[in-house]
């Protein structure tokens, strides 16, 4: 039985935000070439704020209009669509045969991936923009009501909830026994996965929209106080922090010893994540709020358009004039890039 959303069943799968629970940025052992054409284009019928996810032959995209689309990647045609009761800003995640996503009606829905029918729902008291993350059969999600929730990923039954100090738009990083999440109260929290007990909370200078990555006992995350933080995952102690030019809504992607994150100052930053030493920074747009993703030979980010940067130098190697995004992330499949634009257009680029 699948116990988490982190394990792609096939080479091209991309089951959750940034590819897997480890937030490794969806790195794949394949080349990412400059796309030459759109193989197909799909209209979602409303703005798309979140990122698409890929499972074998299905691309799943959620629209702010409240419709979640399952698109056959071979043809770019709709397999099914699920109409949620409210806008969907949350990036879907895949767990077994279920597709999980949050909705502005305060619920997380699980929908059957084959039929598009509802399997279960789990409630909170305000909109859920974060992406549900499953680990050990438990779905974790934050809500704008200020609580972090744990629910049985097979049934949606509540296991526990824990009130933090502010709205939660950050997507949880679920480690084996601990959860890490940013909060609108400016704190980065670590909670016990089993009980929701708060193990530590480290303050930053403003609210947090960014989602953490955890690598080698370090928690990496951005804050609206302009800083990128690296914390000791066991204690919450700040190991290093780096000041960018404006607030950070982007989330880090990690590859090798480098972490990459965007800032609203328009730059993409690459750090040696153990030391915080800046490798490079590159201007990619006027404002960067989306997370980057890392392929074997390129770092991709949506910032007005789609940019691909050389991982070692940060030099822009190609760009495509489509794919404006707030939080969307391209899905890098072996021969295709799947891209969701803020205006609701979905592309398969090859």
């Amino acid at each position, binding site marked *: 039985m699948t116990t988490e959303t982190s394990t792609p069943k096939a080479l091209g799968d991309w089951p959750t935000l940034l590819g897997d629970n480890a937030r490794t940025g969806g790195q794949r052992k394949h080349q990412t070439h400059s796309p030459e054409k759109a193989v197909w284009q799909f209209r979602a019928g*409303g*703005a798309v*704020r979140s990122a698409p996810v890929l499972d074998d032959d299905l691309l799943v995209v959620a629209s*702010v*209009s409240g419709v979640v689309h399952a698109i056959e990647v071979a043809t770019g045609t709709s397999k099914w669509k699920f109409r949620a009761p409210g806008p969907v800003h949350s990036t879907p995640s895949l767990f077994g045969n279920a597709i999980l996503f949050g909705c502005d009606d305060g619920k997380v829905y699980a929908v059957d991936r084959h039929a598009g029918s509802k399997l279960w729902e789990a409630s909170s008291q*305000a909109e859920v*923009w974060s992406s549900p993350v499953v680990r050990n059969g438990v779905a974790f999600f934050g809500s*704008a*009501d*200020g609580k972090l929730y744990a629910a049985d990923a097979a049934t949606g039954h509540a296991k526990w909830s824990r009130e933090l100090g*502010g*709205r939660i*738009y*950050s997507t949880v990083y679920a480690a084996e026994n601990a959860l890490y999440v940013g909060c*609108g109260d400016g704190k980065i929290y670590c909670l016990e996965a089993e009980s929701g007990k708060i193990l530590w909370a480290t303050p930053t*200078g*403003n*609210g*947090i*929209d960014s989602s953490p990555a955890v690598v080698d006992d370090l928690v990496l995350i951005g804050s*609206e*106080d*302009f800083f990128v933080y690296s914390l000791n995952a066991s204690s919450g102690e700040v190991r290093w922090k780096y000041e960018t*030019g*404006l*607030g950070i*809504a982007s989330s880090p992607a990690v590859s090798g010893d480098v972490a990459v994150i965007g800032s*609203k100052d*328009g730059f993409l930053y690459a750090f040696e994540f153990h030391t915080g030493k800046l490798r490079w920074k590159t201007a990619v*747009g*006027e*404002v960067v*709020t989306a997370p980057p993703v890392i392929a074997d030979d390129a770092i991709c980010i949506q910032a*007005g*358009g789609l940019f691909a940067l050389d991982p070692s130098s940060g030099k822009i190697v190609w760009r*495509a*004039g*489509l*794919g*404006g*995004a*707030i*939080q969307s992330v391209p899905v890098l499949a072996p021969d295709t890039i799947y891209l969701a*634009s*803020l*205006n*609701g*257009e979905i592309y398969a680029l090859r």
Partner: protein
Amino acid sequence: MDRRTFVKAGCIGSASLLIQGLDPGLRADTAPPAPPPVELHGLADYKASPLGMPGLFPGRVIEVRDQKAIVRNRISQPIVHQLLERAMKELTGESSARDAWAKFIEPTDIVGIKINPSGAPACCSSPEIIREIIAAVRSLGVPPRNIVVYDRYSYEIDLGSYQALLPTGVRIVGIQDAFTSGVVGYEPNLYCDANFFGEWETRSYMASVVAHEVTKIINVPTMKDHSASGVTGALKNLAYGTFNNVARTHRTPHSFTNPVIGLMCTVEPLRSKSVLHIMDGMRQVWHGGPLTQVQDFIEQPGILMVSTDPVAMDTIELEAIEKTRSVHGAPSLWQHDASSITPDMKAFFHDATRNLFFRQPGHIAAAGKLGLGVAELKQIDHRLL
């Protein structure tokens, strides 16, 4: 290309089709077209409130400033708290901040806070100030669910990360996304009708949240120049953030923001519900507004202004931005020089001598003539604390 256009254009890869108002057929040396008749449809039997514009203290503008309120683009929550309390007490003559706020808000009110996120993240209504306003309103007994922070475009609110930065319980409403046309989120019976340049849709509708949901509005404009209206302050934040389909009022080089901004502000119930204006002058954009992200044209004076009179407030704002432009050697916002007009967004954003339209700062005085407030500088009780 401005950022709003850039985001949209980036999505569909056809930027040139989306730059609003850049009609090469209209040259800067052409005479301005005659203003069309403007038809206003407000709530017919709405009883005007004495709190409505120009409100309880016509002509009075309180300005407080502290350079430490913003340091390297970061705003100090404690200093903003102090500034707002001082300003509110001075505006109302009350000795306590709570009593000052109680002049405008009752516990049973549904309070709308009209933000301006359109320059986010470089210059927008600061979440720190919004947090202080929310705290003050809550201190009067208004529950968080009865506080609505709103603006037209949900994606601009998202860019400012307001959703993560404001307290739990408060509703955050983007009336529309940038890509959906139609009147969802707007009241079809309340509108401003005029044909400015032969557009197919001649109506601008009032947002439903203003028409039907909120009972009071606290307006939080920013301090910015505006390529079409001269400045964007209290009046424009209300008018063009409440009605849809407003970009059609300006097409290069001409702008009908005068008189449309003032006219829209007279429409009920917008006029009566707008009881207080708190201008966020932590940052001041003196060129490239309203959407610029170019820090060269953004100062950080740490100003906060409060007033019930949007005309007086915007008059002070206009003077301040004119002064800053003068210091930097930029031409006056009143200048109508055909050679300064450019259709090139890049030139506009990086050269303070260029502009997209003949600006219309006269919209403020026009609003004064409509009874919305005091536009004559000498008659304004401008108190600088």
